[in-house]
């Protein structure tokens, strides 16, 4: 089922959580809403679910107005960050909940409920835990139960609010691969809220980057990572090296010196040159666009990073760059920095 969000605005007192947001989600797609806290991503998810209502704007499911329906009638599966499992019910009964509360013609006979629940429990690979209670499960197992419970009602949309946020790094990685796999087996239109860019990049078909109540960029993970539309997206989606500069007449300058870098069509004024640390090379100080003194040197795992102090128009700036492990470098040395892939943005925006 496709979802259309048209001009949705939501305010909490004086805080604007969503400011005229529009988004189209294709049927069967897994979309990640990615952004820092306070960017409005969870509010947008709750509005799609029917747990919150916008002040203005429209939400359509397959072209039908969704706002006139309550959460109960929307048939959405919602997975909460803290699982929200019913503590007094066994795993089996948690999953069966959505089937047991059905009334009228939709009500299933007991045998059909058992069959459906067992099927879901084996799908999420916890059929051996059916008689346990939530308190007896690990975080990863709880989230699998929550997912099975949400899928039990055969939802038209699956909404996941930071589903792996409360889990440790290893389980998180395992579960998100598994979620991707599950989505391929059962392509329910899914919206995943996360502040973890790695998670969004790995799991989703498309990423919606949000910041301060706006959508900053929508695109395929690879595209968003390689071609960020704004400095905000560049900064949020991965590690960022921020180099100073100024655009004058279509060329980049620093302290009056021409840098020899492409201004990428940015208009005149202060600019920022953003790159990934591994895309900034160390070079001899002569001839490199940026040069400065090495302040510190750090190693962690396969990575080595240097802090380089660069003189800029506003005093000095400290820039972090990657160094190959076989490269000899000393604190206090003069080095040059050469970004071989970078994006230029206006610094005033």
């Amino acid at each position, binding site marked *: 089922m496709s979802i259309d969000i048209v001009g949705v605005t939501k305010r909490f007192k004086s805080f604007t959580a969503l400011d005229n947001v529009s988004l189209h989600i294709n049927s069967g797609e897994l979309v990640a809403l990615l952004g820092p806290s306070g960017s409005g991503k969870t509010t947008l998810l709750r509005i799609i*679910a*029917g*747990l919150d209502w916008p002040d203005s704007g429209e939400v359509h499911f397959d072209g039908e107005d969704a706002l006139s329906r*309550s*959460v*109960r009638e*929307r*048939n*959405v*599966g*919602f997975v*909460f960050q*803290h699982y*929200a499992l*019913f*503590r*007094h019910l*066994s795993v089996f009964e948690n999953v069966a*909940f*959505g089937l047991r*509360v*059905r*009334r009228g013609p939709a009500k299933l006979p007991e045998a059909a409920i058992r069959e459906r629940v067992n099927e879901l429990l084996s799908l999420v690979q916890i059929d051996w835990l059916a008689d346990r*209670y939530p*308190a*007896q499960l690990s975080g990863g197992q709880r989230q699998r139960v929550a997912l099975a*419970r*949400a899928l*039990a*009602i055969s939802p038209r949309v699956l909404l996941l609010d930071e589903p792996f946020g409360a889990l440790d790094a290893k389980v998180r990685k395992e579960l998100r691969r598994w979620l991707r796999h599950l989505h391929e087996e059962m392509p329910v239109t899914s919206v995943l809220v996360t502040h973890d860019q790695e998670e969004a990049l790995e799991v989703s078909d498309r990423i919606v980057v949000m910041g301060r109540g706006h959508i900053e960029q929508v695109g395929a993970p690879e595209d968003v990572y390689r071609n960020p539309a704004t400095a905000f997206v560049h900064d949020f989606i991965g590690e960022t090296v921020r180099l100073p500069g100024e655009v004058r007449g279509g060329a980049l300058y620093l302290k009056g010196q021409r840098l020899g870098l492409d201004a990428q069509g940015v208009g005149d004024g202060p600019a920022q040159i953003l790159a990934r640390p591994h895309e900034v090379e160390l070079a001899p100080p002569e001839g490199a666009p940026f040069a400065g003194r090495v302040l510190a040197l750090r190693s962690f795992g396969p990575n080595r990073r240097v802090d380089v102090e660069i003189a800029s128009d506003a005093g000095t700036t400290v820039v972090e760059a990657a160094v190959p492990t076989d490269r000899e470098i000393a604190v206090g040395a003069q080095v040059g920095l050469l970004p071989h892939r970078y994006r230029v943005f206006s610094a005033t925006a």
Partner: protein
Amino acid sequence: MSNLAFPFARRRPRSVIPGFGLTLGLTLTWLSLIVLLPMAGLFIKTSELTFSRFLSIVTAERTVHALQVSFGLSLAAAVVNAVLGLVVVWVLVRYDFPFRRVVDALVDIPFALPTAVAGIALTAIYAENGWVGSLLAPLGIQVAFTPLGILVALVFIGLPFVVRTVQPVLTDLDQELEEASASLGASRWQTIRRVVLPAIGPSLVTGFALAFARGVGEYGSVIFIAGNLPGVSEIAPLLIVIRLEEFRYADATAIAVVMLLASFVLLAAINGLQRWSERRGRAS
């Protein structure tokens, strides 16, 4: 084998919470002085009676009726409080309205008000010429000086017990549980019955037990509104006082012993019910 022979001779395990011996000693001494000693006196005084005399006192029609009134109406009042107290808790926790804090504070008044004052106030209101009593009289409902009056008094004094035990539990109940329930298609009523009530159930049973226990022992507020007709609206605690005033101390303690045992059995049963519902909730 030597370990089994001297189970207490083993080295005490180290603990991060020291002071067990001291605090347990203080607890037992204190409970003995305050609770166990007076209770022992009760049994010793009662033992002055022969068993047949004891039986004839506690099976006398007046005694049996007084006990029935006390226990029956306390249970009824606790049931009323459990239901209406839950509504009060719901309103106080879930909604924000003007003077919510004032209403919240009002709940505690039965705790603080001298019971005799409460009794007199209730009597004045519910008497046939009182504000409420005069409205009920044309309908043929008489509250003051009937068992119904006792019920009113017991409901009054028991209310805060239910509210104050359930309130923190409902406040802590995660809103997401109800959202999850609704998203799974449950109606509001199904959510309350299948999600909210099981979660606050154990605390509701505790509140019920406290309100009940308080009702059984209540004296001050009841005697003003009850009318105290033997065989109709006489409560057991009043009968005990009457026996004391007649200097029939052993008779008084005999009734007290029966009350004590009956209360003990009922509270144990309620406790069992609570543990059962908690086990269902947590399931170790």
